[in-house]
């Protein structure tokens, strides 16, 4: 197993993750690692080849890939370390990440702070329980987008799109551009659910028939989609009998909702809000688990990527600051070691600054009894801090020793505190 440590680990390299990694670095965090399950950085933006990104943040109209590359370049500039083609299997509340990839095998990454930026998944057909056959040719819009734009294959030729969300409308145009026919767009609400600009540029522009207050009530075709049945719905979204229409097609595309992807968050003990499906977060985007932050669609679904970037920056900055703080604290603390004739000492680690508040106590037991006077010596990196006379020492009797504010100067800056028993001459 490959074991690594880092200040900040960011899970996901979409817009939220990239922004978070950059902000963590800019906040002064040392090792910032971004973990991405796909073969390259960029997340979902790489398949969003259309424009409309960055209008708020850059005052420019960029495509998804252009937007992503602004941040990919910057991340490289500031020295973010990227682990691509790497999948996170587990995240513990102590911020230990278990991930795998082909090259390193199993990786254990101990992070001082984590930013969850896994985005969301699409609601599938099964979740809507759409009746009918289960042929090939039923896709969620995002999967179809990946096939068309990245893999380079068409999932079909004649499409019916269920849902007038942005992804559905964007795909309506995209598919039309690649020579397919979008027969119908069907929306259960009485209004278009995505952005108006998309409605104009993707649906109206290409004369794609849109049916509001309708839904798909049956899928036909045993091996491959042959048609879908569309029905009008009433105020309770129930199909109205007698309004069924069979629409011949070979593909059903679903754009029926995004669900924040929080399986990893659950593993880490992060509490989720049932209303959003994402973590409860405070104003710094920290979840209920100390040191675990979240940003972007994994928290709640955004409509503009520019605001995802903002959230990423916010979470990343605070994650960076959290990590720096932890680094300082652990750097400051001393190990407490059992020396000659000492079995063990409690506490095991000691922060000298605690002496500013009040005296601190070391508790220990000896290994062997000495029925004669002895010195108990407390040393910091070998230099005497204080000593105490005992008339005898026995394993059965615990010994306490107090360190006081006056001892601070002798202890601060040392790496190790030790307690030993020295027999008096």
């Amino acid at each position: 197993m490959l074991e690594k440590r880092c200040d900040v680990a960011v899970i996901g390299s979409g817009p939220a993750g990239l922004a978070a990694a950059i902000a963590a670095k800019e906040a002064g965090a040392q090792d910032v690692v971004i973990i991405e399950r796909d073969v390259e950085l960029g997340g979902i933006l790489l398949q969003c080849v259309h424009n409309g990104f960055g209008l708020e943040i850059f005052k420019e109209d960029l495509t998804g890939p252009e937007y992503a590359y602004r941040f990919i370049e910057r991340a490289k500039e500031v020295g973010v370390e990227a682990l691509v083609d790497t999948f996170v299997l587990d995240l513990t509340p102590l911020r230990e990440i278990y991930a795998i990839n082909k090259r390193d095998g199993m990786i254990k990454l101990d992070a001082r702070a984590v930013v969850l930026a896994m985005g969301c998944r699409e609601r599938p057909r099964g979740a809507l329980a759409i009746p009918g056959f289960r042929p090939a040719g039923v896709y969620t819009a995002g999967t179809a987008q990946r096939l068309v734009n990245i893999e380079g294959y068409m999932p079909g030729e004649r499409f019916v799109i269920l849902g007038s969300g942005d992804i559905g409308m964007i795909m309506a145009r995209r598919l039309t551009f690649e020579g397919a026919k979008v027969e119908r767009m069907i929306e259960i609400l009485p209004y278009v659910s995505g952005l108006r600009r998309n409605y104009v540029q993707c649906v109206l522009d290409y004369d794609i028939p849109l049916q509001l207050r309708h839904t798909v009530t049956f899928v036909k075709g045993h091996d491959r989609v042959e048609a879908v049945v569309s029905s009008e719905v009433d105020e309770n979204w129930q199909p109205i009998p007698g309004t069924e229409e069979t629409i011949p097609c070979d593909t059903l595309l679903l754009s029926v909702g995004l669900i924040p992807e929080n399986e990893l968050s659950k593993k880490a003990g992060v509490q989720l809000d049932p209303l959003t499906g994402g973590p409860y977060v405070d104003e710094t985007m920290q979840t209920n688990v100390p040191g675990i932050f979240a940003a972007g669609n994994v928290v709640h679904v955004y409509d503009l990527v520019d605001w995802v970037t903002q959230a990423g920056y916010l979470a990343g900055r605070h994650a960076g600051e959290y990590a720096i703080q932890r680094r300082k604290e652990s750097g400051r603390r001393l190990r407490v070691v059992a020396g000659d004739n000492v079995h063990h000492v409690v506490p095991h680690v000691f922060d000298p600054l605690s002496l500013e508040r009040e005296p601190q106590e070391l508790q220990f037991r000896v290994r062997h009894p000495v029925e004669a006077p002895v010195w108990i010596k407390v040393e910091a990196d070998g230099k005497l801090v204080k000593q105490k006379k005992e008339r005898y020492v026995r394993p059965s009797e615990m010994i306490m020793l107090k360190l006081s504010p006056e001892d601070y100067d002798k202890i601060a800056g040392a790496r190790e505190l030790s307690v030993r028993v020295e027999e008096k001459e």
Partner: protein
Amino acid sequence: MEEIKEEYKEVKGKYDVIIIGAGLVGAVIARWLSKYELDILLIDKEPDVGTGTSKANTAIVHAGYDSPFGTLRGKLVVKGNRMFYPMCEELDVPYKMCGTYVVALTDEDMKTLERLMENGRKKGVPGLEIISGEEMRHREPLINPEVKGALYAPTGGISDPFALTVAAAENAVMNGVKLMLETKALDFVVEPFSLHKKRVRGVITNRGTFLADVTIASAGLYCDELMEKLGIKYDFYVRARKGEYYVFDKAKKDSVHTVLFPCPTPITKGILVTTTIFGNMILGPTAYELQDKEDTSVRPEGLKELREGAKRLVPSLEMTDVIRTFAGLRAGGYLHDFIIEAPAKYWGFINLAGIESPGMASSPAIAEYVVNLVREQGLELREKKNWNPIRKARPDFSELSPEEQARLIKKDPRYGRIVCRCETVTEGEIVAEIHAPVPARTYDALKRRTHLGMGRCQGSFDTPRVIEILSRELGIPPTQVIKERRGSNFLTRPTKEVPEGG
């Protein structure tokens, strides 16, 4: 049925036994027969084993109290149940002997429980017990609080019919059985034999004619078409009964973890609220009779029936976190018994029909019964010295410890790439199944073996990657990758190859 071309009539091989249909029962029969020194051919018309009823059922290992004493089915389920779990051990197939419950909600129901108990006792079903409503509430907190009592069958359980079909077929192949997929039985080679009997000499398929001393038909839904070829009719036979199901997310809170049956009707055991071996709560099946044996569509009426039926057992059931619905067809008859016989009109032919519930639990006993029928058809059955009943499954990455996972990736880096995120399935596992003794050559074949695509995203993430892997490993263009059967292609063309006029 298809037209029989001239080239199909060419004799391509001769075997001792041909088994038509590599569903769960056919595969288990093949595995049992592979114990003997016989040349066996197992054929199936689809690109994978177990694509019919075997892949769409409730996966219950019945204890056997339900099927009537004195029927063949009643006898075989009790014997089969005893043999089932050890068989799963040998074949490395998941199973859980968790016990099953028939729930009584009324006094009438309680009488039914007593009837079932008596029937089961007569048949020798071990450990049957009628427990109180209070005890049932204790064992399943979500049960209808009005529960009056339940029949508890400790030898009932659940298993994985996909894994079992593949494992049994694999074990058969390991022991010398020849498996030919996409090979459809179209007709029989029949010769005169004696005054009252004809002889079945073999099978004509789309890949040629194969001769055999004994032909076994375990063709599930299609057994009636085969029987028709031989003029065998059973007057009560109903062709297909549809069972629809709901499947819930493994992470659903307030899930039922026990196997709950309502009181049975004459037609069906009813709509269960139960769990799959993978941890998903499921509701089903319905029991809708139909003629079209290709109609595996889920009906909205069926879904409504499921919701209403399930609410009787678990009134607090919320229909949230549904990840999928599906339907399966089972071939059954009103007489409610298995047909496993060598029809009197023929020599060299054994027919299986109507193997509906409790088919899976009975399968090892059915196989043994068929072995005897084969013996009666005049074949000498000499046991192989080196028959190996043990078949080991390939590693399931999601079940390994981190150290074992690390070691596996070191051995084969393809285990280091996750393809199905929801079920944690790696490229290494997928490649292993594509090249296994009973190879997976379609998306659904891989799904049944690795559980990819069975999670909450239902294939949204893995589909493009699986298509790529299948294309690469099979050496076919991505446009030829299919979901289950011929014609279920995922992709139509490369994006830039636009047809004329585009």
